[in-house]
């Protein structure tokens, strides 16, 4: 027999609250204490709509740590990673503080959400700790919110827009064309929309409409119906993470005929689509088809270790740690202030691209090549990883790396 002594309808409402709580719980931290090691704090979202990308970030930085430690460490000291799920800006900020003050990490690497990146950047500034941002695209982080301890190996929104811009112009999809955009409703998306508008307006595009899409929405059908009514010439995705997967799956379901272009992208979200769902031209900071010896070697070791190829997010976290280890070994010091100085003096780094990259002293943004890719036709895809063709590289071989960088003006390091 079933008897319920204290049961009430309230339990149900509590249940609704509990289910909301469920969405806000992060991954447990993994860390092992050891003496005489160089501790590096790594923060990235492991849950939520950016979680899939965070997974690649962790794979990337772990591979880098394994390689560095396997080769004897930095000046004889091993790297020890303190991995944390950054969850949201509040948690990211609290965890960044804890890593710095309690765990005494030498520096911070990581993050993907521009909102959390801003929070970590503020902690970095206050505690004078170097933070290398590996996944936040907002121009504002390189502009009004910049500071001398926050470095960006991830491309800025401006750079991403530039990466696809020349293909849009070449294929005559800007001038006099009506564009409809879907934008992730948080710091990153708002920033990207601003940059996208600037580019489209400068080149004679006609703005039809924009929809701000909450990050936790998975049904895009109301927006697809609106796009269909508006009959634009081009649909632009300013979305992020799982949003892109949801959007593309349903865009192909509704069979809308307008060409799709993205101003931000991660390969993992397209690998998670399924046959016949992928279309469009998309920008990337790096992809597994980049044809350089370092890039090929990285794809090979990564695939051997994890059983799948790396994508752009793992590139960022892998290269950040490699750059840090290389710099610390050259300087024979782990002093964060010296590390920041070394970066800001224009030290050049091999980041698996044709040309070496360097941090620009004005905003600490890595100056480097960016790429665009075009979705393959379903029939041409050989396996689940073979989803796009490389379109090309910006800037061109004769142009200065800075031509695609965010415009100067807003950043004041002092």
């Amino acid at each position, binding site marked *: 027999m079933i*008897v319920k002594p204290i049961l009430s309808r309230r*339990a149900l409402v509590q249940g609704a609250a509990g289910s909301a709580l469920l969405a806000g719980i992060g991954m447990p931290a993994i860390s092992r204490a050891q003496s005489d090691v160089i501790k590096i704090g790594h923060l990235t979202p492991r849950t939520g709509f950016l979680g899939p990308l965070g997974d690649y970030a962790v794979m990337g930085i772990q591979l880098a740590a394994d390689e560095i430690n396997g080769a004897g460490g930095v000046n004889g000291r091993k790297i020890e990673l303190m991995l944390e799920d950054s969850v949201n800006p509040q948690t990211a900020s609290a965890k960044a503080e804890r890593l710095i003050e309690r765990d005494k990490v030498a520096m911070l690497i990581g993050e993907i959400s521009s909102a959390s990146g801003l929070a970590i950047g503020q902690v970095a500034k206050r505690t004078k700790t170097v933070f290398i941002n590996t996944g936040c695209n907002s121009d504002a982080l390189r502009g009004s919110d910049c500071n001398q301890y926050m470095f960006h190996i991830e491309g800025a929104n401006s750079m991403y827009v530039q990466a696809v811009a020349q293909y849009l112009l070449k294929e005559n999809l800007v001038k006099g064309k009506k564009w409809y955009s879907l934008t992730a409703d948080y710091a990153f998306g708002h920033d990207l929309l601003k940059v996208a508008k600037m580019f489209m307006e400068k080149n004679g595009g006609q703005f039809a409409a924009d929809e701000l899409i909450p990050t936790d929405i998975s049904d895009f059908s109301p927006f697809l119906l609106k796009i269909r009514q508006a009959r634009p010439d081009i649909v632009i995705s300013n979305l992020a993470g799982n949003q892109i997967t949801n959007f593309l799956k349903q865009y192909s379901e509704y069979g809308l005929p307008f060409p799709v272009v993205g101003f931000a992208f991660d390969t993992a979200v397209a690998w998670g*689509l399924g046959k016949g769902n992928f279309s469009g031209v998309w920008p990337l900071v790096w992809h597994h088809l980049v044809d350089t010896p370092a890039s090929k070697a990285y794809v090979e070791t990564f695939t051997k270790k994890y059983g799948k190829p790396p994508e752009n997010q793992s590139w960022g976290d892998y290269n950040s740690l490699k750059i840090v280890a290389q710099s610390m070994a050259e300087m024979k010091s782990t002093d964060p202030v010296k590390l920041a100085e070394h970066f800001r003096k224009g030290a050049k780094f091999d980041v698996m691209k044709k040309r070496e990259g360097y941090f620009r002293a004005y905003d600490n943004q890595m100056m480097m090549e960016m790429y665009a890719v075009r979705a393959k036709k379903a029939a041409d895809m050989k396996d689940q990883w073979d989803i796009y063709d490389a379109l090309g590289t910006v800037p061109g071989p004769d142009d200065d790396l800075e031509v695609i960088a965010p415009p100067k003006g807003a950043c004041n390091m002092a």
Partner: protein
Amino acid sequence: MELIFIIEQVLNGLLIGVYYLLIALGLSLIFSLGGIVNLAHGAFYAIGAYLAVLLTDRIGFAGSLVAAPVLVGLIGIAVERFLFRRFYRSDPILSLLLTFGLAMIAEQGLRMIFGASPLPYAMPSALRGQVFVGDFIYPYYRLMMLSVAVVAVTLTWLLLYRTPFGRVVRAGVQNPEMVGALGISLEPYMMAIAALGVGLAGLCGVLLAPIVTIHPAMGAEILTAAFVVVVIGGLGSFWGVVAAALLVGVVRGLTSYFLPPASEASIYLLMLLVLLFRPRGLFGERIQKFE
């Protein structure tokens, strides 16, 4: 013209409501009969989607549409027998903690086995394409989804309201002591309801797998909205849940049209309003044990 677009969004909202319904129905049944607030309900939806990915290569989409919900139902039976059953008599906070833990274990389990990255999965090419009715557009797939859901909901209704099994279940919801006094043990009924409830969630997982991102946390994503549906619909009323699910779908569709950033908040506002004026929900019955 404007009116046509609004009608289109309303019709589309009804479609959205249908998949809230599949999740919410099981949630409502399990709570009404066993008093368990099943926070792991979304996890069963996620498991359904992952099973669809695993099974489709072997038995096709149609096969997995049948097999995956059955498998999820079997998991439901095990969970009921070995976990839920211990908590019918205890403080609801305990079962809340239990299912909260289950949800986390399921999510992390999926993450450990399949990774955090979304799994690729596409609809069978036979279901691709759209129907155009005047100005309206309906993908074949959503129409198929709608018909499967309608069949599932109708069968559930027949089971609850037209069979001896359903009579015992409904009596058990209203007055478990009396059912016990009549010499009927509710335990096997509870087991069947758990299997049915989570099986429906599994079915919803398979149906949505081709059109949403398949990732470990997908269950948590849909669960809160399903709870809102149950609260708005009210306990003990089958049609309450149906009406609430469709209402939530339409409200969400319309706010997406007029004020997209508020589309998520709109359903909570709706819940707040309903609770203010009708604390038992739209069609909630007065049930002794919940008062």
